[in-house]
């Protein structure tokens, strides 16, 4: 298998493996903090900082952490960095700290961070893990910004809190609410699929074997490890090829 370059490790999180629009991870903070561009940027950067730091720390400790307790160890490390970010934001960026509220603490259980720890940092070197964290963090931030731009501009008639002439008279307030968030989320996923012409990472590429909880259900055979991997409901990979799908 051809080894990825450091650049491609960094770049893949931006679009083809974008954690929000392709992997569909971190949906909760994505919907909750994208009503404003400021909130989205703050959440994106906070999560990116935790992602880079936790990836580096986990990569450094990967050979010392026993496999049986790796998930609790990862969680402790991630929670430690999240708390650190919380303390720093509370002290030096109190306005953003209050704006993000509970979602800042919830970065601890953000699937993206634990997912990258398990999928990448636990198996790769420090530099590549840092690049992966930076790429994924940046991809997460850009996705949040894209969502927030649509929601704040068209839903709130403002950008960065500043009123936009004309648009502010015809704002679609629905977009700032949760259902509007889901709508924008779906439309942007569709847009990413259209841009990448569905060549982004396929579902089978991040099946059970990359799931952080795969170890916990290792007692049962993991479907992803099966040769006849089910990629679509009721259709095996073999059948897909025969039918020209996939």
């Amino acid at each position, binding site marked *: 298998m051809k080894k990825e370059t450091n650049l491609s490790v960094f770049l893949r999180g931006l679009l083809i493996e974008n954690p929000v629009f392709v992997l569909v991870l971190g949906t909760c903070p994505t919907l909750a903090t994208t009503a404003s561009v400021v909130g989205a940027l703050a959440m994106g950067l906070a999560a990116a900082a935790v992602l880079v730091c936790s990836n580096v720390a986990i990569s450094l*400790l990967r050979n*010392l*952490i*026993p496999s*049986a*307790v790796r998930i*609790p*160890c990862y969680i*402790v*490390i991630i*929670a*430690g960095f999240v*708390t*650190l970010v919380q*303390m*720093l934001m*509370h*002290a*030096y960026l*109190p306005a953003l700290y209050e704006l993000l509220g509970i979602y800042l603490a919830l970065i601890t259980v953000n699937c993206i961070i634990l997912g990258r720890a398990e999928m990448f940092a636990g198996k790769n070197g420090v530099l590549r893990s840092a690049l992966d964290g930076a790429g994924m963090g940046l991809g997460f931030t850009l996705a949040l910004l894209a969502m927030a731009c649509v929601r704040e501009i068209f839903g709130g008639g403002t950008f960065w809190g500043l009123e936009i002439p004309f648009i502010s008279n015809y704002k679609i307030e629905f977009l700032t609410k949760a259902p509007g968030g889901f709508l924008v989320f779906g439309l942007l996923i569709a847009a990413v699929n259209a841009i990448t012409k569905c060549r982004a990472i396929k579902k089978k590429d991040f099946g059970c074997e990359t799931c952080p909880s795969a170890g916990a259900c290792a007692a049962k055979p993991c479907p992803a490890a099966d040769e006849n991997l089910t990629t679509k409901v009721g259709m095996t990979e073999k059948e897909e090829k025969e039918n020209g799908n996939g």
Partner: protein
Amino acid sequence: MKKYLGSIVSLTVICLAVSVLLAAANGITAPVIEKAEGEKANAALLAVMPEGKDFQEIDVSAYTLPTSVTGAYSEAGGGHVLRLATTGYAAGLTIMCGVDKNGKITGAACISSGETLGYEKTYGERFAGLAAEEAALVATVAGATKTTTAYKKAVADAINAATILSGGSADIRTEEEILRDNLAAALPAGESFAKEFMAEELQGVSAVYKAENGAGYVFVLGESFIGIDAGGNVVSEADKETQAAAKAAFTSHTSTVLSEIELSAYAGISPRVEKAYRTASGNYVFELSAAGYGINGEYGASGKYIRIKVSATAGGKIIDCVTLEQHETENVGSACADPKYYEQYRGKTAETLGEVDTIAGATYTHRGYSVAVSKVFEAIEILKGAKR
């Protein structure tokens, strides 16, 4: 076993390392956070005392302060900022009030409120720069009488509390305590007093209280509480005119005889009027049933009317009004049984009935109550024969 031990040691070491890292971070950030929090708290204090410096929280439990005072801060210049919790119509009001060392209000602001009207947001501005006597003269806001009255009382409490905290003394009795003390002073032989319904118009009298042990009555004339024993002798000190007015009121009040009117003999009287009486002096007393939320409400309505007693002059002016019974929604429409609500109807005529403040969140109750009271004016005209 070795495998498990390795896992335990690894997890423990990681937890300890993270704890050390966070403890170090906390050591750096905690003072910054504490300073910022202090500045934030100070901002609320500075809003009501812009010249204040070095605010220090005072333990209010060490002082006997008005019950509305929930917090107090002293400042370097000898002033105080008080935090007060009070009640407007139903919801709580939290008010910050600054009082300088001379007892003048430096500012008052409502920092949280569940009131619906919103007058409390800017009402505090009217008190800035006023002394206690001037603050007492600040007018309440029509349409938000209860809210603004509670606000005024809180500001008065703040001034009293500041006086006490500065080492002075102040009367911090509640309205109920002041009333009880005044009644006991006016008629020392009386034991526990009950407010009387006034069927007759008593000149200059705003309220009548009867001693439950039969010792006599207390008549409130302006600021004076005049006690009259069961034999009709004035037992309180007062000038001759006041004594004479109290005696006249006593005679009129105790000699009131009500003659029931046969309503079926009159056409056109609203079914809201259940009973009617005529007094010896030609005034009327009515017992009404008001269709409030209990009758017209949709959810949880009791199906029962509000029962009201109203006295009115033959000229169509309400003398007294009292709620006898109500089954409205607890803590909402039940406010119709609060004297602060039904006593608003005193002195009202058909033209001025609309001036009565509504009950916040209880439109049905207020509307039903007012409609029932308005039927009194129609009934008087009919009973007088004008529409017979």
